[in-house]
């Protein structure tokens, strides 16, 4: 029953991503889109428990527009089709904006 978390805000600017991290559960899926892509380089990302099997995805074109480099060993770069699929294959969606 994983939750899809769509993260749209920069953690450098607002508390939204920190709140998202508080409700993360094993097997949940995160997708960073819009200004959420800045979180790839925020220290909060290091607090994600590596044993919790959280999938970390980034909307590739949103990162690219912002000249944000995606470390592909940590993040999966996805497109909008994959986000639509993830919406349907997870059990619920929370948008952090």
């Amino acid at each position: 029953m994983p939750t899809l978390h769509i993260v749209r805000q920069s953690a450098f600017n607002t508390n939204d991503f920190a709140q998202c991290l508080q409700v993360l559960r094993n097997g949940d899926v995160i997708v960073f889109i819009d200004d959420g892509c800045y979180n790839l380089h925020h220290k909060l990302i290091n607090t994600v428990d590596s044993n919790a099997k959280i999938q970390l995805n980034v909307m590739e074109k949103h990162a690219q527009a912002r000249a944000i480099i995606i470390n592909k060993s940590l993040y999966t770069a996805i497109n909008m089709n994959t986000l639509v699929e993830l919406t349907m294959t997870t059990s619920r969606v929370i948008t952090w904006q």
Partner: protein
Amino acid sequence: MKKLAVVITTPPYSNLSATALDYVETALNSGVEVIGVFFYQDGVILANQQVQIASDEFQCIAHWEMLHQTFNLPLHLCITAAEKRGLSDEQPNNIHSIFTISGLGELVELANKADRMVQF
């Protein structure tokens, strides 16, 4: 086929609403049944016919109109949120005709019918 409903709360002069449009269009093109898009909070400003965006900027509304016509996509405008932001169904040339005037009851309906509800 799974049913999707979308709530849009971000204003048309932000790129956040272009993302919402991109998401809905991608869902429709990939064969997902989008049973309705509900515009709430600042999302309602999109429905104002008088909105003027410079011609060299992205014309969000024209794109929504195309989706509405191509896919028969229902676009629901929350009238309470709209009235707070100066839209009126009693004035001419005010609310774009592709929108259905709705209340929050429609959101209940969408939440009930949809397999998944996503907020943008």
